[in-house]
């Protein structure tokens, strides 16, 4: 697209689709404000950009200038950032249209988009179910065909898990591939901006644009933008590892069948498939739910009603102001995680919990290095143990909710790139398969995903 009239038509069509899908509660931007902004953006966009006229929604924990950034929280209600995220600036530089902010679990803490102060997001094909989380609004909008791609963020699987639940592609890049500048911090050693797309190609080209060095983020690697690989004819020469720990006896039978078919198709594409072991996987969720809350308890200390966001007032004492603002402003899941994080960092418990979790993280990263050092290019696993669950089903039991991240947290702990793509359905509900790659070798992961996506589409058409 290079014609300004096409960009305007794209903006209008996206605004229409967003209005029609309002019932999903996937977008937090009022439709009228969004339409006005999209039309203005289409007029200002540069036609030579590689994403010219492409509407891309942005998760509400990524700072934008046009729209509020609330992180799905009451404590940032109405907050408008005075700067925008580097990823958003790069999208705009490539001619994309920022199609509003998407609903998410509060501060990206959740796996169902039920923990948003602005109400839950509905699954796009079954309103009784959750779209996954925390980037559930982004996944739902892509799955509903409202936008071809959206930005999400990952700390423990928050792009791949909703991508799997909603039947779209989700990519979590290597830690340091995409600048975190303007991504509201949750777990700084784990957080990465990721992309959800209706196809591998759509997601990959957005990732290519937002990737690359940024002097505003010291943890962003000094590397060029990701170059997109071509769609391969075969996967001859690829070695794909199947880790037994991701196929436990109680894995959902439909998920296992879909994975078995995907593995057969990978073999038919010419890949060598090998059984491998990542022995510390069973401890990953425990390590994650110590490290991430510990980092969150520190990162979220800044929300106190003094400098930004609403102030829950009524006291003349500043400590009382902090406590009331934080007590009323944070939702239940955020409060739980801050408490757990504060607990595991407190005197007497630091060694038993936090230090052990850090050691476990090192062992999990070493497991992957061992597999890759033996000639394996990629690991293939299910993305989630089961398809989208019913709304409310796991709300009373936080550990049951946390376990839905069991196959995704390892890539975050090890800082590796990972991608989820649809590999089948159970009773109409999508199932995702996941590739995990070596650090900064996203192109291998994308090649395998392109090839698998193509043959799955062909098999389903046949």
């Amino acid at each position, binding site marked *: 697209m290079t014609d300004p009239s096409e960009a305007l038509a794209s903006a209008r069509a996206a605004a229409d689709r967003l209005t029609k899908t309002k019932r999903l509660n996937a977008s937090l931007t009022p439709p009228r404000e969004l339409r006005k902004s999209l039309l203005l953006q289409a007029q200002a966009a540069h036609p030579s950009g590689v994403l010219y006229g492409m509407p891309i929604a942005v998760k509400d924990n990524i700072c934008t*200038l046009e729209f509020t950034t609330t992180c799905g929280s009451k404590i940032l209600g109405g*907050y*408008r950032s*005075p*700067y925008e995220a580097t990823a958003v600036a790069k999208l705009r530089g490539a001619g994309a249209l920022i199609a509003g902010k998407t609903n998410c679990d509060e501060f990206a803490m959740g796996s169902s988009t039920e923990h948003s102060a602005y109400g839950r997001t509905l699954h796009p094909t079954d309103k009784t179910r959750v779209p996954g989380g925390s980037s559930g609004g982004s996944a739902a909008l892509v799955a509903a065909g409202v936008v071809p791609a959206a930005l999400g963020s990952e700390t423990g699987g928050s792009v791949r898990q909703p991508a799997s639940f909603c039947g779209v592609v989700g990519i979590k890049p290597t*830690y*340091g591939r995409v600048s975190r500048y303007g991504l509201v911090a949750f777990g700084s050693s784990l957080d990465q901006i990721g992309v959800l797309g209706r196809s591998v190609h759509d997601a990959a080209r957005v990732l290519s644009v937002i990737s690359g060095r940024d*002097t505003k983020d*010291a*943890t962003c690697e*000094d590397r060029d933008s990701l170059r997109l690989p071509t769609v391969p004819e075969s996967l001859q020469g690829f070695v794909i590892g199947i880790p037994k720990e991701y196929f436990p006896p109680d894995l959902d039978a439909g998920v296992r069948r879909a994975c078995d078919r995907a593995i057969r198709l990978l073999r038919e594409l010419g890949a060598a498939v090998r059984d491998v072991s990542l022995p510390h996987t069973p*401890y990953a969720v*425990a*390590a994650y*739910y*110590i490290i991430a809350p510990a980092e969150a*308890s520190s990162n979220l200390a800044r929300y106190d*009603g*003094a*400098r*930004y*966001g609403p102030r829950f007032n009524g*006291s*003349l*004492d*500043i*400590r*009382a*102001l*902090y*406590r*009331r603002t*934080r*007590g*009323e402003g944070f939702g*239940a899941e955020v*409060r*739980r995680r801050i*408490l*757990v994080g*504060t*607990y595991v960092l*407190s005197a007497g418990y630091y*060694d038993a*919990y936090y*230090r*052990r*979790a850090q*050691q*476990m*993280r*090192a*062992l999990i*990263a*070493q497991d992957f290095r061992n597999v890759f050092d033996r000639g394996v290019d990629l690991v293939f696993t299910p993305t989630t143990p089961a398809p989208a669950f019913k709304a409310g089903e796991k709300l009373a*039991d*936080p*550990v049951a909710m*946390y376990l839905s991240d069991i196959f995704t947290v390892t890539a975050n702990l090890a*800082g590796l790139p990972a991608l989820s793509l649809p590999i089948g359905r159970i009773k109409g509900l999508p199932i995702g398969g996941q590739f995990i790659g070596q650090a900064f070798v996203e192109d291998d992961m994308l090649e395998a995903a392109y090839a698998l996506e193509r043959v799955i589409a062909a098999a389903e058409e046949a």
Partner: protein
Amino acid sequence: MSVSREDVLNIAHLAEFDVDEETLPALAEQMSRILDYVAQISALAASETARPFIPGPDALRFRPDEVKPWPLAFGPEAFAPEFQDGFFLVPKLGQFEDTEAPG
């Protein structure tokens, strides 16, 4: 690991937020369940020599240590709850003010 109501209140005090009396029992029960679950990492033999894993660049790149205006689209007066003459306004630290007040 059983977390008591008092434990929750102590941790909430450290974390600087109020907890409603009626949510305390559920919060204590949920925290106990979470801490029981994550305690499984104690199966790992403690090692003082294991190197922690830190993702990202091997060495952080530092910017020049210069004071320069940050390019914000608008100033803090636009988003601060209360702002006056270049300062964020907050209530006084009551206890401190009381003890330091001249007698």
